[in-house]
Structure formats: structure tokens, C-alpha cells
């Protein structure tokens, strides 16, 4: 058997690239302002460089997908937008990360305020072991919102936006967030973030622990949410990146295992006519 026959069929054929010319026009109409920009961001764990010199811009009300092999620093990079890297002992970030033109790395920036504007959904659904209601009300309550009517309203709106309301409205206060299925839990986590009224939502492989049906529901949800939010999603699933994102950034590892940005561009172009050989190899399944 010839060696090449053991490769999977090029993924390209099975990817339905939604960003046609019409899609690109729609994207251009939806968004023009820059929401986030990074300038030569490097992230180190101790002496080890995890991410090197990443500069890119993310437009308001768009979805950017970060793709690339494991260890290419996508998730680490994602966590510098809401400074979750602060929690990792020994991690340090160099360069500038600007939200609406303001450098979030400055020492006088309040991480609490930053994280209210830049929400995050994690890889493993992690609802608190509290009722569904309390999960969604958690953020607003911590900001001092205790008005019962306002909370009721906020919880309902957030759950509706996360497409979970109809499944849970009957036992909001009785049922624990942990009693939901994996896909529902992840939508609950999204609702929990929406309730804090963020501008940006970071998602770290939000569907990787979910079954295909739940994954599709999350993707549908993402497409709705991009009308109002700026979303950055890390994903291992290239079809997912192709299906939901407007712009795709491809990361890989250098010789010294530091992650770096290979190229970034409209998703349609990245998946059909990438500029870089590395990108083409990755998306066609020859690497990673």
C-alpha cells in the first residue's frame, strides 16, 4: 500500500465554508471598529516562552477562531485578554493587549472590571453546584445587584439568549446546575457570562467535551451572539472554526516549542487559499 493512502481525505472537502462573498459582505457591514488589538504579545512560564510576539486585531461584533495544534499557545494567548494568566504562578506577559484602545496589562487596570467586560467560557462546563438561577445570578449579585425583580428579569433574558430558557424555566430554583446535561451545562455557563453584560466573550474549546448535537447548538448560539458580542474562540475542530468564525488565526509551534501566529485572515480565505504552507498543511490534515 502506498504511504500516502493512509492519510485521511483532505479535510477541506468536508468543510462547508460559509464565508462566501455574501458572507464577507455581511461581515463587513456588521463590523468595522477594532475591539481588541495585541502588539507583540509574548507569554512566558518562568523562563519558557509559551507564546511569542503575537500581534493581531479583532473587530467588534465578530468571531475570531484561534486554531492550531496542541501546545501552540492558543489557550494561553486567549487567557491574556481577561488576564487569567495572572492566576498562574510564574506566568508573565509582555507586550500590549488593548481593549477599546486601552492597554489591559497596565498595573492600575482593575482585573475585576476587565473580567466583567471580557467574560470567559471554559473547556469543561463548570457550573457552580448551585441552582440554575443562582448560577446565572452569580455575576450580577457580586456586582451588588440584589433587587429580586431585576435579577428575575436578568436571569430570564440571559437564559433565553443562551437558548436554554425553555429547557429549564420550570425548575430554575430547584434544580442544580450540575444536574443538567453537558451541553445544557455549557449553555448555562454561557448564560452566566451573558448575565454580567460583557462586551467580549472568550471561549476555550467550549464544545470539545460535548456530543455533536450539543456542539451544533452551541455553534448556532455563537452565530446569534456575534450580532451583539465580540467572540474569540479557541478550537481544535477546524470544521467548527470554518462554520462559525469570521476571521481565523492559525498558530503553531516554533523549534523551541514556543507558540506563534502563522497567519490570520478571513475564514473563507484561510480555509481555501492560505498564504502559508504551514497553514495549508494543517487544515488539510497533513500536520497536527
Amino acid at each position, binding site marked *: *500500500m502506498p*504511504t500516502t493512502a*493512509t492519510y485521511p481525505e483532505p479535510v477541506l472537502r468536508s468543510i462547508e465554508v460559509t464565508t462566501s462573498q455574501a458572507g464577507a459582505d455581511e461581515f463587513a457591514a456588521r463590523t468595522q471598529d477594532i475591539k481588541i488589538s495585541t502588539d507583540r504579545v509574548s507569554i512566558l512560564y518562568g523562563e519558557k516562552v509559551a507564546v511569542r510576539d503575537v500581534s493581531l486585531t479583532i473587530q467588534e461584533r465578530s468571531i475570531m477562531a484561534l486554531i492550531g495544534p496542541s501546545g501552540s499557545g492558543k489557550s494561553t494567548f486567549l487567557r491574556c485578554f*481577561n488576564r*487569567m494568566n495572572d*492566576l498562574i504562578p510564574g506566568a508573565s506577559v509582555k507586550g500590549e493587549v488593548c481593549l477599546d484602545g486601552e492597554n489591559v496589562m497596565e498595573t492600575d487596570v482593575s482585573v*475585576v*472590571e476587565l*473580567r*466583567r467586560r471580557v*467574560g*470567559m467560557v*471554559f473547556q*469543561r462546563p*463548570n*457550573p*457552580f*453546584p*448551585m*441552582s440554575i438561577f*443562582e448560577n446565572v445570578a*452569580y*455575576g450580577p449579585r*457580586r*456586582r451588588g445587584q440584589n433587587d429580586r425583580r431585576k435579577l428575575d428579569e436578568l436571569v430570564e433574558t440571559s437564559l433565553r439568549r443562551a437558548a436554554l430558557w425553555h429547557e429549564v424555566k420550570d425548575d430554575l*430554583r430547584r434544580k442544580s446546575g450540575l444536574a443538567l446535561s453537558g451541553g445544557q451545562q455549557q449553555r448555562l*455557563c454561557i448564560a*452566566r*457570562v451573558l448575565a*454580567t453584560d460583557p462586551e467580549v466573550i472568550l471561549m476555550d474549546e467550549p464544545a470539545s467535551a460535548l456530543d455533536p448535537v450539543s456542539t451544533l447548538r452551541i455553534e448556532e448560539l455563537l452565530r446569534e451572539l456575534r450580532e451583539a458580542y465580540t467572540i474569540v474562540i479557541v478550537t481544535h475542530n477546524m470544521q467548527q472554526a470554518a462554520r462559525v468564525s469570521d476571521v481565523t488565526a492559525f498558530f503553531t509551534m516554533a523549534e523551541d516549542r514556543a507558540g506563534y501566529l502563522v497567519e490570520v485572515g478571513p475564514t473563507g480565505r484561510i480555509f481555501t487559499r492560505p498564504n502559508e504552507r504551514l497553514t495549508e498543511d494543517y487544515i488539510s490534515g497533513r500536520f497536527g
Partner: protein
Amino acid sequence: MTATSGSIGRPMGPKPSLRRKSSRGSILADRAATVVLWGTGALVLLILGSIILHFALAAWGVVSPSFILSDPSETTLGGILPVLWNSIYMLVLTMLIAVPVGVLGGIYMSEYAGENVVTSAIRFAEEAISSVPSIVVGLFGLILFVDDAHWGFTALAGALALTFFNLPLMTRLSEQALRAVPQDERSASLALGATKWQTIRHVVVPLAIPGLITGVILTAGRVFGEAAVLLFTAGIGTPPHYNFTNFDLLSPVSPWSPFRPATTLSVYIYKLNSEGLGAFKNQIVDGSAAVLISTVLLFNLGARGIGHILTRRLTAS
């Protein structure tokens, strides 16, 4: 990679039997482990059961409402009301001091302290104090509170000495309970824009409640059972008749006051057993022991119950 499917997996050949002889040794080891572990568990239950059974039988006919509700007597069976009261009083007083300090210490160690010289010193001190014999802690309390501070034998001196003795354990168990809360929960809360203290208060502590309750129960058991620390601090004399309507918290005779001697049930059992002369000495000791064990068991159950309610309250308020 150039591997073809033929080179992956086991080579072709006779299929291994499901009844391979070589696995017999490991099956035997597996069964032996099951038997030994099951047997160990049974032994623990047996020991606990026989202690309870022994005192239940010994106390049969001794323990009655009047035994629990009467004052001690030299000539009749009498009762143990004042010493039982003192045990409970000392427990509450000690816990009022040790639980807040222990839990706050645990929060510091688990959530704030880094790994450095100070924390290793604290850990060393925790272990050192825990392994000091309780009689030495009692002597320390005697010197510090009873003599130097001129308090005399008082409930407060006893409670403080017990706190010394139990705080390291309480702090260590609290720290472990808090550390056992998954990091994911903290990240989720912080990512929602909660402050560190809000995260501790609303997520970490509520989730650690079952572990914290275990700490409280273990500490309480030691307070109930402790005699040596109290001999020299809270006193050993047979208590007088208590007037429970005297609520003067500074009085040297009010049962509610921390400034009075407070012989506890454990100390009373020790005293009767070593120097008691009364005709009913043995019955009183057996009865007291049965009451002590029952109180500890009741306290444990109660603490678990309160823990459940607290968890529910704190995680869904």
C-alpha cells in the same frame, strides 16, 4: 508517520484464551486484598460496636432521666448534671474561639499564603503543637492562665488551653478542606468578575463546608474527651449545685460564667476512677461513660445535619 494498518496492533497468531492460567496469581491477590480490606473495615466497626455495647450494658439501669438531671451525691447514685453541663459548656466556649480562628487560619494557608519560610514555619508549628502531650499543654495553661494571670481554675482558662491544643488540627483540616475545592470553581468565579474575597466567601467556603464540618467534629471529639489539659486549668473539684437562673457572666458561681471552675464529664470520670470512694462509684463511672459516648455521637450527627443545611443555604441563597 508511514505506518500501514498491518503493522498496528498485535501480530497475527492464536488468540489468547480468556482463561489464562497466568492470571490466577493476580486473581488470588485481588481476592486476598478484598478479604483483608473488608476485614479491616469490619474490625473497626466491631471495636466501635463493642465499646458502645459494653457501656450500654454496663450503664443499663444506671442511666435514667434522674441520673442525667441530678447533682452528684456521695451517699446515693446521684447524677451528673453539673459535669455534663460543663462538658457542653466547655465545648461551646472552646469552639467559639477555635472554629473562627481555625477556619480563618485555614483560609489564609489555603488561599493567601505562598510556599515560603513563614508558611513552612506555620506548618512545622502545627505539627509540633499537635504532638505535644496534652498534659504538657495543661501545665502550660496552669502557668499562664491559672497562676500568672491569677484567674485560678476557670472555664476560660480550660477553653483557652484546649484552643491551644486544637487550633493546629482545626487549621490544618480547614486548609485541607479548602484546598480540596477544585480550581475550576475559583477560575469560574474570578472570570465572572468576582473579587478574590467574594470567590472565597461565595464559592470556596460553601463548597468546603463538609470538610470544615469534619474538622469541627474531630476537634469537638477531642474537647469532649480531653481530661489532661483540663485537670490543671478548669479544675477537678466536684461542682456545687448550679443555679441556672443566675445569668451573671462574671460571677464565680453562675453556671453560665466562664470565670468559675468547670469540671467536665471526662475529668469527672478520671477523678472517680482514680480517687472515688463512694459505694456507687463504678455505676456512676459506667453511666457517665455511656452518656459521654452518646453525647459525642449526637453531636457528630447534629454537626453533619447542620453542615447539610449550611451547604444548601450557602450555595443556593
